[in-house]
């Protein structure tokens, strides 16, 4: 069993959820998105982000607008659509269930379940 592989699998599983949650908070430029994820210690290759965003956009979850930039070509700023919000809600519920389950299972027996924190990015 390759530990690194498992780790990256775990990280990547929540990647899309994380991206959507960032966009939900407001219009975002992809490289800013990467920076914010990096700040949260979640590394992603920019090259992976673009196809992902394009796919989400094509699926109707996201939309974008062009913004002129003085340091290069016009930038694409992504925003969430109503469909995207709905989709995000589904994902969030699944995540909460999953987090609860994982938390319950990983806690030593008999200890209180009251400690509720971490992993979930702040809304």
């Amino acid at each position: 069993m390759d530990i690194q592989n498992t780790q990256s699998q775990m990280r990547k599983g929540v990647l899309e959820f994380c991206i959507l949650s960032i966009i939900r908070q407001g219009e975002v430029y992809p490289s800013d998105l990467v920076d914010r994820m990096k700040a949260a210690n979640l590394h992603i290759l920019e090259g992976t982000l673009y196809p992902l965003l394009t796919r989400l956009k094509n699926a109707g979850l996201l939309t974008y607008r062009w913004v002129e930039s003085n340091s290069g070509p016009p930038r694409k700023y992504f925003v969430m659509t109503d469909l995207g919000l709905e989709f995000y809600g589904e994902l969030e519920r699944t995540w909460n269930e999953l987090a609860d389950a994982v938390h319950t299972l990983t806690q030593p027996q008999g200890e209180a379940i009251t400690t509720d924190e971490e992993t979930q990015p702040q809304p």
Partner: protein
Amino acid sequence: MKKVININFQGRVIPIEESAYDMLKQYVDSLRKFFANEEGRDEIINDIEGRIAELFGESLKKGNTCITDDVVNGIIASMGRPEDFESEEANVKSQLGGESKQSSSSYNFTEAPRGRLYRDDNDKLLGGVCGGVANYLRVDPTIVRLVFALIAFGAGTGVLLYIILWVILPSKPLANTVSTKRLYRNPDEKVIAGVASGISAYFDIAVWIPRLIFVLPLVTGIFSSIFRHSFWWDGDPFPGIVFGSFGGTLFIVYAILWAVIPEAKSASEKLEMRGEKVDLNTIKNTIQEDLEGFKSRAEKWGGEVGAKAQEFSKEFTQTVTEKGQHFSSEVHYAAKKSSFGILKIFGFIFKAFFLFIAGIIAFALLVALLAFLVAGVGVFPLKNFFLEGFWQNFLAWSTLLLFLGVPVIAFTTWVVRRIMGVKSGNKSIGFSFAGMWVLGLISAAVLAFMIAENFDARARDKQEYTIMQPATGKMMITVPESKVKVYGRWFKMDGLISMTDDSLFLNNVRIHLVKSKDSLFHIQATKYSNGSDESAALRNIKEMNYGINQQDSTIFLDRGFSVQRGTKFRNQGVVISIEVPVGKRIMIDRKVQRRLNHFSLNNGRNDWDSDEEWNDYYGWDSDVEYVMTVGGLERVKDNRKIDKVDNSDLDNDGASDAVEEFKKSKEELKKEYEKMQKKTEELKKELDKPIDTTQYKYKKAVALEKAATLNISANNKEEQQDELLESPKLLLMKMVL
């Protein structure tokens, strides 16, 4: 020191180092390839390029004068290489549910599943059958295409097979980089053009093996010919080496491969040649290898490093640029939609039909060219009898090789290149072919001129043969059975019967029948020959040996004459003129017509000496008796009957013949009769001897009686003769008894 170029990137002009530009280009290409089957490929690439442009802008704002390798490397590292996000992608996509189906093929395609045969949608000329088969077999599609083309035009079944496979096989875009090797010429390890080392890279064998295969026949050819030392004829050293059966074939094969196979110039081509997977890392490795090779070479040259290194760096940067261009042109775009309408089908059918027709035309042209070449080679054995000296031999060779051979090779090359889809970016091949052909044309013209020069003058030599006049007044002309064995007749030329290594046997012999000026038969032979001048022509005549023999009233003409080695063919010929006196008859045997080249009878009115119209043919037949009259030759229709009433010359017709014969037989009978009488006389004497007279007296009476009857009936020739012959025997027998 690095070259900096300006590029237009996402609508901005960006100064960038050339090497950095190549890296960037390769990176974008690799992304394009990676997202080949992604629905929004162009958009993704555009987004990424936009971001890169932005990063470039930031870098330039910081005060950098241009984009360096490091900047590009940094950007690529942060963006990630296709290899890096391959596994990430897989997970991301699987989460997207419905969409994953579509996109999953985009990363699946790199591993063309073996075990199922598809038509390749990515690499196709017509329907992608060959590409699919090649992918299945993991070989170079061009090889499959060549094999198909060979079958198609060799037996016609290939076309059918192709169509069947086209219909049966499902279409699918298959990756063309994985495990497909391509045949390239290897410029790094070359002796002549790198064909052998390219082949060795393709088949993954040591370089010396293909080299040996190419060279061995030549070497053995040279050795064996040294032992035979027979092909150094008349200053003619090429044929044994170049055309020594097997060696020659491989020589041509090498030439064709040289022309057909592209040279592996760029790094990616070199990788393809070795069959390694082409991605950025491996390309980088190869470039590094190149660089190291360059370094070590530069070090070797020590003192000359300055000049040499500059040269090499130039070469290297050139290689890199070309490599980038090649790489991009080699990248196949696979965004093909699986559904195509009726129009597309029609398009395909039309294309197939067109290719088929074009192929047939091309093939026919090739066959015609080959036929010319074969004909040229066919005439070639004769050349020693035509040509003089080194230059003419040289020109003959260049005519054969350049004037006839080059079009064949050029055409084959063109067809093969067409099939292989090699872009004819290199015009020099065409120009060199054209140049060689023009050289061939010139040498053909010069050769023709030189040969014509050799045939310039014409001379003749008349020779009178003494013959015995035939007693019967009739002469028979025939040709003896030939002692010359005729072989190698696959090549036929007017007037030529056979040819051996050192002699040419010609039957350029014609017969003229003319009226004699006196009452005797005369035979004259006039030998003709061409030559560069009068004396040369006469020399050629001297070498000719033509004989005429007589046996009683039959004249035997030689079947032909030979041109010995050393003498040349200069249109030699013999005209035999037979003078027939008026009133005498002549018959030409059928063999003459069959064995001599032209059987032409002059009707006697012409003065035979006036010309040598060898082609005059007056419709005289062989095996027919002719008689010479004052007005010319007349046919004797039947032995007994007069063809034409001719009162002036009774002697000439059939009646006189009969009378003569009759007279002759009468005379003979007389002689016989006299003999018999003598014998009877002797017998009488014996009988008269006085011994027992009674018995013998009777017999004597019988004998006397018989002799008397002979005397009386001397008219019936045959019976008389028989009886006359018989009677003495009878008598003698009886006497013994």
